[in-house]
């Protein structure tokens, strides 16, 4: 796997803040950040159903493997030098249910969180 494309929601302040943070992190696998439902996203992945990418963070490898929601978050951690160990820890059978719950909670409330943290435009 030589790169991961991250489809993120540019309307969400929290996501933009996370993207800035990601840009600063040392990586083991390069991350390409593309806005959801943008022309670029459709050009890169012509056969993908782009509707669900609005609701959940989506990560796609250069070989076409698609990861949604919690798995996408784990793949992003896996790509980072400092957090690869954490991706395995959080993906372990003991912690995966908690990871899923926390990730979907944050995803569902991302606009509220952005507003509360004054991250909105």
């Amino acid at each position, binding site marked *: 796997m030589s790169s991961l494309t991250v489809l993120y929601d540019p309307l969400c302040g929290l996501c933009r803040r996370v993207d800035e943070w990601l840009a600063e992190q040392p990586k083991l696998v390069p991350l*390409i950040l593309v806005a959801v439902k943008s022309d670029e996203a459709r*050009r*890169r992945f012509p056969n993908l159903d782009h509707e669900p990418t609005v609701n959940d963070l989506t990560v796609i490898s*250069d070989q*076409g493997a*698609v990861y*949604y929601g919690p798995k996408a978050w784990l793949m992003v951690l*896996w790509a980072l030098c400092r957090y690869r160990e954490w991706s*395995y820890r959080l993906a372990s059978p003991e912690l995966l249910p908690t990871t899923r719950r926390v990730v979907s909670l944050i995803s569902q409330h991302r606009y509220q969180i952005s507003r509360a943290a004054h991250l909105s435009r």
Partner: protein
Amino acid sequence: MSVEIITYLVYLAISIGLTIWVAHTLHKSGRVFLVDVFHGNEQLADSVNHLLVVGFYLINLGYVSLALKLGYNLASAKEGIEALSVKVGMVLLVLGGMHFFNLFIFSRMRRRATLRNNPPPVAPDAFTAVGAA
């Protein structure tokens, strides 16, 4: 020679001998490990191995030297042996601690190195065709 002098000499002989033996073991067995960590780069592995052993010698011999002084007089050979056993016991504990610390460093280096090639933590949800970038 008084009992004190003999005790000191025996203490030095035992501690230095032990230090050399542990350092030699570390040097010999640690090499394989380091070569693996540095992906077969033997020159780098030998260099790091040597530097680790030098640090090991400095700390251990430093402790042996600092702990030499007894601070009281020995009346008999029996007291000499008792004092010796305490001193050598301390040296052994320090050596053991240092040795495990070295093993910890080795295993951490190895884990870091192997992490780089580890597969993704989760299986993909689906597959899609990848178009032009």
